[in-house]
């Protein structure tokens, strides 16, 4: 009795809930009962106690579901320890999520990724004969130690160019290469193309890429908006290094790179022309796992280079010759404009 009163007094909000007001069985009963009997029957049957009623009222389906869920979770945590634990299972996303570093290149890794499989012997390009280990089942097998050596060399180039603040472009226009390309570019602080290379993007850049945004950054990669006006009549930005995962389909891109004197890295299968690129990586370009691996390794190399560059910039050093503000203000068409001296930084896209 005291408890009920307490509940009524203390919880106004509970009482404000839309529910049947508690009616004491005392007032309801038409039968004559001894007070002792009522006290005994009251307790188990239903609750005149407002606290109990409130609990009943909030038992909507949602709370039931919550309870059930909780129970399931408890059961799961209890029984999860049973059974066998799967370890060392293959993770197809692993190469994308956590690509290996150039130091992790092993022949076993390359073999497991299928980079050694070339094309049918009838489709070979004899210029690739030095990368080929042998013939197996009518298919050329690319020498894995050569692949590893060339891949390490290419990774070194990517790292050095990134350390000098160069603009790197990753291009992989085959179906399924999108994610690895984007991931590699993200790691290396580079740019990517996973759709068609628009012919003329380099040779006719003013028309095709003229509307694209450019910015001036300092050595710490912070944007300097005060130079925005000076970028108006500049030619479109050229990459310093192009990484191409499928040189066979991107002949136009590589040709334009040749015209504009841009070094290139490419995966050269046994049917591709190795002279199209500056740094060939003899490997299978048809296996997505293989291209993912190579893109990931190059991305990691770029990441290391960017890290080194930013660390050096913290100390006030650069591997490249920074562009002075005066040079930036110089307009190629109208002549020389005066500029401030202290701000400097490389011009990047």
């Amino acid at each position, binding site marked *: 009795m005291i408890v009920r009163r307490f509940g009524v007094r203390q919880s106004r909000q509970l009482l404000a809930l839309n529910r049947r007001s508690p009616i004491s069985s005392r007032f309801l009963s038409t039968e004559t009962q001894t007070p002792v009997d009522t006290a005994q029957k009251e307790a188990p049957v239903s609750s005149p106690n407002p606290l109990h009623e409130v609990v009943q009222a909030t038992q909507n389906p949602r709370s039931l579901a919550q309870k059930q869920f909780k129970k399931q979770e408890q059961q799961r945590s209890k029984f999860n320890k049973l059974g066998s634990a799967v370890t060392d299972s293959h993770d197809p996303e692993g190469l994308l999520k956590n690509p290996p570093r150039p130091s992790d290149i092993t022949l076993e890794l390359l073999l497991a990724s299928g980079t050694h499989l070339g094309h049918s012997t009838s489709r070979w390009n004899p210029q690739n004969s030095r990368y080929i280990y042998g*013939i197996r089942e009518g298919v050329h097998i690319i020498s894995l130690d050569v692949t590893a050596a060339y891949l390490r060399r290419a990774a070194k180039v990517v790292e050095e160019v990134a350390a000098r603040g160069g603009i790197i472009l990753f291009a992989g226009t085959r179906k399924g290469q999108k994610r690895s390309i984007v991931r590699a570019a993200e790691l290396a602080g580079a740019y990517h193309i996973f759709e068609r290379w628009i012919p003329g993007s380099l040779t006719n850049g003013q028309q095709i890429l003229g509307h694209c945004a450019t910015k001036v950054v300092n050595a710490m990669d912070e944007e300097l908006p005060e130079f925005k006006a000076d970028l108006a009549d500049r030619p479109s930005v050229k990459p310093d290094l192009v990484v191409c995962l499928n040189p066979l389909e991107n002949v136009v891109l590589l040709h334009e790179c040749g015209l504009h004197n841009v070094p290139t890295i490419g995966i050269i299968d046994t049917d591709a022309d190795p002279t199209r690129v500056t740094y060939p990586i003899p490997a299978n370009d048809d296996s997505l796992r293989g291209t993912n691996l190579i893109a990931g390794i190059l991305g990691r190399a770029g990441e290391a280079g960017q890290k080194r560059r930013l660390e050096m910039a913290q100390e006030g050093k650069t591997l490249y010759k920074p562009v002075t503000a005066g040079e930036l203000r110089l307009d190629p068409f109208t002549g020389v404009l005066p500029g401030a001296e202290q701000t400097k930084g490389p011009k990047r896209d």
Partner: protein
Amino acid sequence: MGKINLTALRVRETALNQFAAGKIKKLPQWVEVVGDIPPAEALIRNRTPQHQLVRQRLQTNPDSSKPQVVFEVQEKRRKPKKPSRLFKPVELRYEEDQLRTEFFRDHPWELARPRVVLESSGKDFEFHDWSRIQQPGKKLDGESVVQRQLWLLNNVPDMTKSNAYDIARREFYKLRLKEDIQRRVAAEEAQATGATFGPSYLEIGMELENEQHEKWKTWARLEAQVMDQRVVAMSGAPELAMESETERPADIAQETEESA
């Protein structure tokens, strides 16, 4: 430029020349990188690796107590290679190739079994020890027999090919039999504890066949009726047709009763 385009390989030279000639005001940042890490030599033909089939055998000698390891190299061809084929890649051949063809010729249905060809690290072979046929993490299959046979040939003194094949095969059959028994026992256990596997393939097949028989029955009945009617129409006695029609269902009913 001729047939071969060397522009990509000469980017650094071109950049230096352009700078010297004043075509570009500034050397690109990559020039010293390309200078430090020069591009690969292209268009240089090296002799491709020559592969020979090597067989390793263990032979007992009456003079010494220890068996001797002998390597047999495949004989060189009598006719030398054409000079024009000098730089062509050579076929890769291994001793187990022949063992493999032999095994799968004798057991073609082994090729129908599903197989895992994916490796995550490429180092699975490090866990394999072919002194026994069962390997951790590898399903027993034809390749196990081939590798076991090769190990026997390489490591057991005076082992012949057919002997090794028999030993490896026997181990393989024994384990396959064991697998069968394990599967059967597991199924029985599961059934004993209340599992149901649904109808078997045979039962499903029989059901489908019965269905087709029923269809044929109705079709045949209709055909018989049509033929009867045709005969009656030719003879010109429609009342006969009426009779036969009334009789027929009764006949069939009798037949079915008899068969039941």
